[in-house]
């Protein structure tokens, strides 16, 4: 019993210590930055989409969006590789996570990080630490929606 109390006290002290060490993000500037960067990334996406439709006027709208996202994913993956995307992320917070570029970053970043653990257990496994949950939840949810639509 005594040991139990001691452990509880220690945990509380540790939690206080962690709380004190967590970097505090100032709400207002970070909200503005995420708005700014998120808006700019979306405008770049719209620009790519317009250029694709300008060069290939016969392309279906859905294919044009797919190409747009692929180009954005390529850019974000490259910027992650050369270490620039992390710097944007420090400034923008949610503005760099929520766009599809953040998804791309979340795959490339651990892949580069854990490269030294080998191709299979480093790159291929760690690639999905963040993307895994995203794909799983998306596929499960879309399956459920599909089944519901089957019956209505």
């Amino acid at each position, binding site marked *: 019993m005594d040991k139990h109390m001691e452990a509880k006290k220690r945990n509380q002290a540790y939690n206080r210590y962690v709380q004190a060490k967590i970097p505090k993000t100032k709400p207002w500037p970070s909200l503005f930055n995420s*708005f700014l960067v998120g808006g700019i990334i979306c405008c770049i996406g719209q620009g790519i989409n317009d250029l694709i439709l300008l060069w290939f006027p016969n392309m279906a709208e859905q294919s044009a969006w797919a190409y747009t996202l692929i180009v954005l994913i390529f850019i974000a993956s490259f910027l992650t590789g050369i270490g620039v995307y992390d710097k944007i992320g420090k400034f923008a917070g949610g503005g760099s996570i929520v766009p*599809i570029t953040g998804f791309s970053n979340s795959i490339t970043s651990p892949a580069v990080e854990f490269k030294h653990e080998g191709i299979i257990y480093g790159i291929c496994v760690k690639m999905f630490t963040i993307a895994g949950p995203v794909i799983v939840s998306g596929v499960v949810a879309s*399956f459920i929606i599909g089944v519901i639509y089957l019956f209505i």
Partner: protein
Amino acid sequence: MYYLWVFLIGGLVCMLGQVLIIYTNITSARILVTFVLIGVLLQAFGIFDPISEFARAGINVPIIGFGASLAKGAISAVKSKGLLGAFTGGLEATAGGIAAAIFFAFIFSLIFKSKTKN
């Protein structure tokens, strides 16, 4: 002119992510999952397409668009293939993005070294 809408809506969606970060200390994996699920729900209730018509990239570039096309793929595949469509539709619609993200991540992780070590 519609770039203004793209900027405003895209910015607002991303700011919503930042609000979640500030008030709940949520991790980036949870943010992405949350927004994908929002996208799936918006598409399921048929709200996504009307928003997408004037917001364009503002709603398609955020990961909400990824969730919406998952749901859209599943819904339209169910109509043409039945139950099989519920299995194949979602990933079919988003295969381009997922494959691109995996392919580029693999190539660039072979080329570049980690910068955080120094």
